């Protein structure tokens, strides 16, 4: 498959600090790619390099196979939806959306037609004359998307576009964005620190931390097979327990041996063991290798969230059935639920 955008060995330093540390990333055409990570991980910097707002200190960026280092933003076939929308306050909805087409000096009839299509796409028909300051956050968001898409970019860059919206609206817009991306069949590169958002919308998730790419994969891969403890911890909630890989398919946790499915870590290697809270079941103490005391129970709607203290480690457990506070319970999980990772450095 062809790569529409490729970053090769990208390095960015700022004030002596390394923001991007030799990043390599290939983005397939028509894909919804999310750059996910905590603030300061370099995801926005990566986006700005693709947008043309920032030149990397070294490394190559290609667009449809051609090197575009040094090409200014206004010459790239890429458009951006900015974090706080950056709508032009002195222009109304129509003029904002038409801005890029006016700059390209398209005929007025063509502009009207294409802006109209966009208004339909983002459900803003009838708002043409509206002043930007009199739109709700969600409407502003739609204008920003329309303003970028009307230029028919090959790639749309979105920098935490839903960050300023409330939860309900955010969920709606997530579905809306996915719908737009699929109907237009263009590449979306989406930056967020919200893991749920990333998992909901993306075809591919790129998890970043401290200027490094931690893992690239589908949402399911990222969630089920995190490559290291950072990813596991960042995506969803996890129990990360120190363990020792005794040999292939056998790991020791809190002094007990468990069968698992991972191989190739060598013998007697210290590792991090990751187990998702929902993969753990509570059983009578006599049926489990590990047991502990329930120290907290919280009702979360769909499930209960419980903390069980066992062998100096606090296990986070999600279950539809609650256990009694203070009671002794057994902790059980299958071989598939155990994810072994290399110990995190530092």
């Amino acid at each position, binding site marked *: 498959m062809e790569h529409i955008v490729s970053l090769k060995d990208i390095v960015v330093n700022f004030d002596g600090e390394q923001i991007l540390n030799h990043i390599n990333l290939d983005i397939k055409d028509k894909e919804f790619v999310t750059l996910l990570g905590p603030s300061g991980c370099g995801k926005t910097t990566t986006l700005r390099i693709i*947008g043309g707002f920032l030149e990397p200190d070294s490394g190559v960026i290609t667009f449809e196979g051609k090197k575009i280092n040094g090409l200014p933003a*206004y010459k790239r076939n*890429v*458009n951006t939806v900015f*974090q706080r929308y*950056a709508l032009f306050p*002195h222009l109304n909805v129509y003029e904002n959306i038409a*801005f890029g087409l006016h700059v390209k000096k398209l005929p007025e009839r063509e502009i009207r037609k294409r802006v109209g299509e966009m208004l339909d796409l983002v459900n803003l028909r009838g708002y043409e004359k509206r002043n930007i*300051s009199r739109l709700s956050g969600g409407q502003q968001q739609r204008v920003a998307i329309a303003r970028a898409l009307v*230029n028919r970019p090959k790639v749309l860059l979105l920098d935490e576009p839903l960050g300023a919206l409330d939860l309900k609206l955010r969920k709606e817009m997530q579905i809306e964005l996915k719908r737009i991306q699929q109907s237009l069949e263009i590449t979306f590169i989406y930056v967020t620190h919200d893991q749920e958002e990333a998992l909901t919308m993306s075809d591919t998730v790129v998890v970043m931390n401290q200027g490094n790419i931690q893992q690239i994969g589908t949402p399911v891969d990222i969630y089920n097979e995190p490559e290291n403890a950072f990813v596991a911890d960042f995506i969803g909630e996890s129990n990360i327990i120190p363990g020792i890989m005794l040999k292939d398919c056998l790991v020791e946790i809190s002094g007990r041996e468990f069968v698992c499915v991972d191989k190739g870590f060598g013998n007697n290697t210290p590792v991090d063991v990751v187990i998702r809270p929902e993969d753990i079941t509570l059983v009578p103490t006599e049926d489990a290798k590990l047991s502990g005391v329930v120290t907290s129970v919280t009702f979360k709607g769909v499930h209960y969230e419980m903390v069980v203290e066992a062998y100096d480690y606090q296990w986070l457990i999600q279950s539809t059935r609650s256990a009694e506070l203070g009671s002794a319970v057994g902790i059980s999980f299958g071989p598939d639920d155990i994810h072994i990772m290399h110990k995190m450095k530092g």
Partner: protein
Amino acid sequence: MKKLSKLYVGLILAFLYLPILVLIIFSFNTSKSRSVFSGFTLEWYEKLFHNELIMTSLGNTLIVAVVASLIATVLGTVACIGISRMRKAPKAVIMQVTNIPIMNPEIVTGVSLMLLFVFFAARMHLEFGFVTLIIAHITFDVPYVVLNVMPKFRQMDANLYEAAQDLGCGPVRAFFKVVFPEIMPGVISGFLMAFTFSLDDFIVSYFTSGSTAQTLPITIYAMTRRKVSPEINALSTIIFVVVVVILIVKNMIERRAEKKGAV
């Protein structure tokens, strides 16, 4: 309490306006007396308009104010683009320097510029006159432009400029299409402030004008030094009326703009 407040405001307003009111009344007085009103006349207004010194100095004032405030506006606005791109530390230093002409006593600004001009006059072909006057006015005008425009850059979404570039504008075009409309209110208020300060300035002009390019305030000063002349009363009345009209118009425009923004 309410009544007391009203009384207090009334007293202060009386203090502020009575002297001006007296000037206005006596500008229509037939005699030169400052205390007895002996009859209505427009004689002083007529004399005022035929007073060549006043008319030329009024012309000088307008020329200096327009030229100086325009140059200051361009110089200051362009500077703000540059300053807004700087890091904190150099920005802070520049803003300190910007504050010097505002914080310094005007007389010090005046004499320090006079020393500079005397120095240059002795070595080059520089004579005290329009050039020195306009330079001096730009110098005390430009900080007001910078102080009015800088906040607009601070308030502006930093991504606007990038958004315009993202949508196909080159750097210069992006500035004029997007950034300029945003900072425009600051540029205009900076210009107006500079213009009024230039019109009104006496002290700095007094030290930097020489004898050829007298501005209106300098002429007024010379007139107050001499014997009583009711022409000043007439001039004060005209200036007062002009100021009132300008402020009312300004207020109306602002109200209209507010209404427009609110609907």
